[in-house]
């Protein structure tokens, strides 16, 4: 029976400003990362034999390159104690600018690889954004455990989202994940006479078309070309349809977001797993047929297939999380992805062999997002060899980097999704 009186002061916007690392720590981490990614880029570029010839060049330029990058980061205020919302884009911009500037400065100097600059910028971006993502999430989690202690029997349901909490909640919602994947699978084949066969028809058709085009029209004579093509084409289809579908996975579920609370990351993950289920089915059909048809002997490297699969799925999930989050803020992402996929298909060694790419371009092709995974599949089944260390390095970096960055993005922004979709 009380009427509440208010004091004049308005609400205090204690906005959740993530705690940023001190600039000293940030600079030194970035510097260490910068030096190591630059050296790794040289190793990726020249592999084993010619590396010693280029190493002196690399060592002598590394202070300049890493220094330029740090300078660019400072200039773009990436270390400011309270940077603006465009924090992460500033980090990436700084790294790219620094690499570009040092490439310009070192123009014409012998024994320097320009490809290595591009690779360095890419790897360093992944690393720098990745460690910042982990940092922010950890800081948020710690802030919450402090406040939680005082609360007792009551809990804040909006705050289940710590790094560990995510894994727990994903596990808790595994039956939702399963339901969503099964729902999509059921819906896809409901009412169609041939059902699952349609999923085989699409890659089959693509393989037929490319085989005709390459062997009969262009006259490429590669042994077992169909088998080679299939390995790349199937894994590419999985990646391409996952990323395309994931852009809409959050924005197209407005009604759900506005009425039910659940970890939002589930939506893009379910999309990827739905495509992954189809990928596994097609692989389970095509791979044995091909192995028998071409009388391919089974060799030990093939045991690594599950490892590559896991990396591939982790990478795809990471990209899907990034794209789904980005689409909430910019609807253009959908169209960008379509265009990008058309380009990426040709920068990935699917219809051609990585080994036939001109030597100086090889690193660029290897760094194309899907390449390490496609190349790994081809190494295992087509060449029946252990994949090179360079392939593993890029594959693991991409998988872990995409997964961490994607997860951090969703967690950092998911409480704003409901308001923005």
């Amino acid at each position, binding site marked *: 029976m009380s009427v509440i009186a208010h004091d004049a002061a308005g*609400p205090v916007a204690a906005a959740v400003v993530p705690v940023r690392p001190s600039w000293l720590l940030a600079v030194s981490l970035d510097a260490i990362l910068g030096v190591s990614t630059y050296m790794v880029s040289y190793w990726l570029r020249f592999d084993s034999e010619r590396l010693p010839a280029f190493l002196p060049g690399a060592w002598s330029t590394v202070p300049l390159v890493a220094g330029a990058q740090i300078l660019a980061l400072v200039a773009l205020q990436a270390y400011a104690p309270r940077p603006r919302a465009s924090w992460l884009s500033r980090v990436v911009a700084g790294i790219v600018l620094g690499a570009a500037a040092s490439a310009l400065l070192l123009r014409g100097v012998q024994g320097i690889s320009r490809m290595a600059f591009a690779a360095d910028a890419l790897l360093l971006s992944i690393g720098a954004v990745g460690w910042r993502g982990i940092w922010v999430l950890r800081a948020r989690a710690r802030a919450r455990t402090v406040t939680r202690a005082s*609360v007792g029997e009551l809990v804040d349901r909006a705050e289940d989202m710590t790094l560990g909490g995510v894994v727990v909640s994903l596990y808790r919602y595994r039956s939702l994940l399963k339901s969503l994947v099964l729902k999509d699978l059921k819906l896809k084949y409901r009412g169609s006479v041939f059902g699952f066969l349609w999923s085989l028809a699409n890659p089959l058709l693509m393989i037929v078309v490319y085989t005709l085009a390459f062997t009969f029209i262009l006259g490429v004579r590669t042994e077992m070309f169909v088998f080679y093509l299939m390995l790349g084409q199937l894994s590419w289809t999985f990646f391409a349809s996952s990323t395309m579908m994931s852009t809409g996975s959050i924005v197209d579920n407005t009604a759900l977001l506005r009425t039910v609370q659940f970890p939002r990351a589930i939506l893009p993950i379910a999309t990827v797993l739905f495509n992954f289920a189809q990928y596994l089915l097609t692989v389970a059909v095509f791979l044995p047929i091909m192995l028998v048809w071409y009388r391919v002997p089974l060799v030990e490297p093939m045991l690594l297939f599950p490892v590559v699969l896991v990396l591939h799925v982790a990478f795809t999930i990471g990209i899907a999380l990034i794209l789904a989050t980005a689409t909430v803020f910019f609807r253009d992402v959908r169209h960008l992805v379509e265009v990008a996929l058309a380009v990426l298909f040709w920068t990935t060694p699917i219809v051609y062999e990585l080994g036939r790419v001109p030597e100086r371009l090889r690193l660029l092709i290897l760094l194309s997002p899907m390449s390490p995974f496609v190349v790994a599949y081809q190494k295992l089944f087509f060449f029946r060899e252990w994949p090179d260390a360079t392939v593993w390095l890029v594959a693991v970096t991409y998988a872990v980097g995409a997964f961490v960055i994607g997860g951090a993005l969703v967690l950092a922004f998911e409480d704003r999704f409901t308001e923005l979709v």
Partner: protein
Amino acid sequence: MNTVIEARNVSKHFLLRHNASVELKVRFLGLLSPRHRQSIEEFWALKNVSLQIARGEAVGLIGRNGSGKSTFLKLIAAIHRPTSGRLLVARDSRISSMIELGVGFHPELTGRENVYLNTAIHGLTRQETDAIYGDIVSYSGLEHFIDVPIKNFSSGMYMRLGFAIAAVLAPDILLLDEIFAVGDADFQQRCVQTIMGFLDQGKTIVFVSHAAEAVRAICQRACVLNQGELVFDGDVDEGLHFYDALLHPGGHNQAVPASHTAAAAQIETQPGSDTRREDSAAWMFDRVAQAGLQPSDRVLHFGNADPATIERWRSFLEENHYVPLFDDASVFGLGGQTELFDVAIADSVFPFRPFNAVARCIASVVRTLKPNGRFYATWFENPDPANFEPIVQPNGITSFSDSEPYHYPFGLIANVCESVGAVVERVPGTGHPAGESLLVISPRR
């Protein structure tokens, strides 16, 4: 006190983006031309709300549209996160929200598949769902249809399934948002029964509604929100009075009373704010009778009529030809009415409903009219569509474009009628003493 929900100085702030666009193109244009630039306005949906709800309490959240009621509900459900302050809920309590029923249903899936999907969305495992699946089906009464894709369901069946899931989830805390606004009479009765059942089991209920009767029936405690602030917390009857006083203070932007005495004083200065509406009902009867009402006509009547006027309708018309619908839900749906009506009247509905409700009301009434039927409605005139200023009507009531009592431009209502296949006219010479005038809407022939 065994607290299950506690709000500590909760504020929620939304950014209203004018000129908002999620397209990159427009953002780039914004750099160049101010016309495309996005301007951001802050909007505090809730300001420093502190509130404790104990186990087994049924609390009604009341307030006009945009006062932050639904936002508060969504904060409890953790769909939104408070901008500042903390909203705490008892550990391990299951919260079920009937904010929108049947969300997440997929039309191509069968009822059974949708039940499993929906419970999974609410965090249940398959085993848990197996255990309650039978209850959900029998509760919904859809045993025969459960394996049919729900695109073939009627909207009533859809609602029933959604409600059955929400009800059988056996929540510890139940959040209800205006659910009486949907479904037929039968469905609404079921809702009330279920909610009463929850109350008996000592569950906690937070209920958002405009319908005073529903709040009175369900809740023991009322919280009134006004422009995001909690202005009253206490007894239901007092709360409803307080809300009424807020709605009809005589002036639009009157400051919220800062103390109980001020509020009480205000209630006294507004004696029987319903007399105006009742008066309008009697006046409408006379008008409609003049316009040639026959005893054999079937009449649908909704609004706020006094018993005397209802009796006049009843005695004038043949038996069972008078269908009065006086609760809030009637505005949105006329479920259960199978016969068509000759005359429908809405007294004091248009000025007291937001425009989307008015549009729905027109659409559903036009559907239930005979081809030569008429629909009479009172309405505050706004002569100029561009005029958003309060207008003082002839009897001194001030009507608004954005709060009750509303004035809507004639053109706006004409557009709605047009789109549902009807025409609207002013009834000439019907200047009502209360300042309302009369519209007649008839299906286009």
